[in-house]
């Protein structure tokens, strides 16, 4: 069989990746399914995302904010930073599956794959012929995972569309945040998507193990709403057992005091402190400048919770004259849980994260190299494969069709001409993030041989290209 089992980068030298030899087809949107497929790819699978140009992924449509309006969307679609998070390491095939030819290609891909993942809403899948039954017909032992916002054909919400922020609200996650005297706050990032992706990755790996033992695939359904609900499960039990759920109380939580985020020297610098138990309270009393808190007056958490406002004042007086790092370090040396409130720049320059190789610069088809967060998972015997950043839309269409499906080049040409298959748009057009050299400077990450242009020159070049394109089209 003419079959290319290797994702970009090929097998990792001397290491066995748990999903080597596994092929994943992802037909996803946004974050949940794409991130699950990214995880599987980084742990060895050949992870292929099937992408439409007529209805591209939201993270493609977004594009980079600095690209001028009117610039070729086919290029802009490869530029949004978050794509590196959702799709690093994958291969991309541009394919319109709502045509008969396109659907036939998808069937051939699925027939040669082990896993199919989607997060389309439940009502869309039958229409696109992407149900478990549809795809199991071409691959009987398929591991199929759907991750809709609201699973289940019985759901009154089955046709509803959501973003992570909507799901945070619906599932009760947003009610975990807020000041007691104010409206609740939107979390602002897609927590339900990500925990669904992590749990979904786990479920797919478990299902592959069982398939290898029994020969049986399965259908996994992971509704993002229920996953977010599972993450706040204790609050559901609290309601049942106490008849009420304690309302949000800023950064304080029941059973821990003092706890909060306190101001430090400098604009917008803060330190988070949790005196988790009586031992930590005793430790706090040994910190220079806080020894007056030692003694029996606040020996129990009940006493400290009753005096929380006064204790916050004491801590604020102490933190305000220190930097966030000084405060956190002094507290930690004494044995108290504390951390600076890091912002994104702090993460990039954080020596601890650098020592753990949290960020990497990986090959990118438009930028040469681009910034990627690796994995929150470190394993002593399994080094994930960080082969590339996000692919361009359709970057691997021809490779996939010839090597995986076994198509002749002429057939690929025919499908491209018919608008069924798309190859990467203007593959020779390279860009540069105007601000990326700052990241390079502060993060000390090894960057590929650089062709940095000053941002101004770069923007001029883009405008010139656009003017040229306009001339080519003519009046």
């Amino acid at each position, binding site marked *: 069989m003419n079959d290319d089992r290797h994702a970009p980068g090929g097998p990792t030298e001397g290491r066995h990746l*748990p999903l080597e030899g596994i092929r994943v087809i992802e037909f996803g949107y946004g974050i949940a399914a794409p991130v699950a497929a990214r995880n599987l790819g980084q742990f060895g699978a050949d992870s292929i995302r099937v992408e439409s140009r007529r209805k591209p992924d939201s993270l493609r*449509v977004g594009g980079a904010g600095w690209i001028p309006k009117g610039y070729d969307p086919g290029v802009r679609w490869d530029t949004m*930073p978050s794509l590196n998070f959702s799709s690093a390491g994958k291969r991309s095939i541009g394919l319109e599956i709502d045509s008969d030819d396109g659907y036939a290609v998808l069937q051939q891909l699925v027939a040669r794959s082990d896993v199919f993942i989607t997060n389309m809403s439940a009502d869309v899948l039958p229409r696109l012929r992407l149900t478990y039954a549809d795809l199991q017909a071409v691959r009987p032992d398929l591991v199929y995972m759907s991750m809709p916002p609201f699973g289940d054909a019985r759901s009154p919400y089955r*046709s*509803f569309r959501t973003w992570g*922020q909507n799901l945070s609200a*619906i*599932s*009760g996650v947003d*009610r*975990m*945040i807020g000041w007691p005297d104010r409206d*609740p706050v*939107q979390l*602002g*990032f897609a*927590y339900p998507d990500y925990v669904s992706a992590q*749990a979904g990755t*786990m*479920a797919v*790996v*478990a*299902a592959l*193990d069982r398939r290898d033992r029994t020969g049986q695939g399965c259908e*996994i*359904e*992971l509704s993002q709403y229920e996953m977010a609900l*599972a*993450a*706040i499960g204790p609050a*559901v*039990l609290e*309601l049942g*057992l*106490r008849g009420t*759920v304690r309302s*949000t109380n800023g*950064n304080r*939580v*029941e059973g821990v005091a003092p*706890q*909060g*985020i306190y101001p430090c020297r400098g604009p917008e610098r803060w*330190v*988070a402190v949790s005196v*988790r138990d009586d031992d930590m309270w005793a430790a706090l009393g040994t910190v220079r400048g806080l020894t007056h808190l030692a003694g029996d007056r606040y020996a129990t958490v009940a006493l400290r919770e009753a005096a929380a406002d006064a204790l916050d004042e004491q801590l604020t007086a102490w933190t305000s004259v220190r930097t966030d790092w000084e405060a956190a370090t002094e507290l*930690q040396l004494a044995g108290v*849980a504390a*951390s600076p409130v890091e912002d*994104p*720049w702090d*993460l990039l320059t954080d020596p*601890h*994260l650098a020592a753990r190789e949290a960020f990497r610069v990986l090959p990118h088809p438009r930028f040469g190299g681009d910034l990627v967060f690796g994995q*929150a*998972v*470190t394993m002593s*015997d*399994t080094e994930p494969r960080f082969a590339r950043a996000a692919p361009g839309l359709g970057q691997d269409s021809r490779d996939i069709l010839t090597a995986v499906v076994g198509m002749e080049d002429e057939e690929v040409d025919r499908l491209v001409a018919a608008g069924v298959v798309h190859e990467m748009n203007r593959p020779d057009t390279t860009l540069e993030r105007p601000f*990326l050299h700052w990241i390079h400077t502060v993060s000390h990450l090894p960057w590929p041989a650089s062709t940095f242009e000053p941002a101004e020159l770069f923007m001029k070049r883009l405008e010139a290209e656009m003017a040229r394109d306009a001339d080519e089209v003519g009046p």
Partner: protein
Amino acid sequence: MTGLLDDIKVVDLAGPAITYTGRMLVDLGADVVLVEPPDGSRSRLLAPVATVASGVTISAHFAYMAAGKRSVTLDLTSAVAAPTLERMLEWADVVLVTPDDSDPLPAGLDLEAWSEAHPRLVVTVVTPFGLRGPRRTWHGSDLTGWAAGGVLPFVGDADRPPLSPAGGLAYATASTNAAMATMLALRTRTSTGRGQLIDISVQEAVMSVALEAGPYMVMETVSIPYERTGMRRSTPPIGQYRTKDGAVSIVGYMPGQWDALASWIAEETGNDAITLDTFGGTPAARSPYVEAIDAWIEELTTRYTKQDFFEEAQRRGIPVGPVNSIADLVADPHLEATEAWRFVEDPEIGTIRYPRPPIRVDGDAGDVGRIPSVGQHTDEVLRDALGMTPIEIAGLRASGTI
């Protein structure tokens, strides 16, 4: 049970930071044995704690996380316990450990020694900052995990400190990452024959759920706007808007969705300004007018209850969610229609409502198991799983070790 992990055995020494990992493995069919001190795990007292009608006190956190696990008592601080722990680790496929916040662990805990002595064992460890790196000895909490994860400067109100979610959500994602890594390690073992050490940092776990709001922002701009309200100004409309009875969460910046929202507002409130091209372009073009736009949106939302607005908005193709309280969830039509609740009878507590396990395999999510009492399964585990004799077990009991 969904049965994917029916043959997997887990020793659970985990504290709050990854108790959910064990629950996830239980949901997929694993045999998870919770090891507690003879007087019960500290997690049994973890807030929120409830006193039910019968007078029994129960931690809602523990009741959720321990459901379906077996409980064995073992005083790990006693030297006498060491051989029993060794036998448990030899029996198990996986051990879950949180050195920073769990119940007392063996003095001089040496994770690498465990791995060497039990080469097939997967040792899954969650710590605030991981096992390597300059801050590996730092203590942590759910709050400090959020703080270290780089996203809090964008959450909350401008005139107050950054705001962290409560509810253990940093620990929940440390748990989902740990469960994922544990499965990957088990699969690696099928070909290598070796277990391994998994190192999860709560800091990185938080980064793994919030990157689009964190580090990737610096790839777009040099100066990060310190706006607590997240994307509210940069990509309007996005955020929470008041309704008659609470609030709804609206994400309406994609072109078609904005158009649908604007014409709805025009139709119901008579506002003919909002459909002007000035506001119809990119989210960035709307940005200077965010205060006006938000006020116009609230003229519409405040005419509805949150559930009615949610359903009508969805009918019009606008992504909206009601900001539900936990009590609202119990009344939610989707959760009702899809049998999302499980009711567990506990002999001491009565009926407890649980959300169903979130993963369905071939249509079956499985049930939620019971909360084990302290040491409820000590004898059966020591006898059947570890092959200990009644005399050995009696000896451990006499010494107070179990």
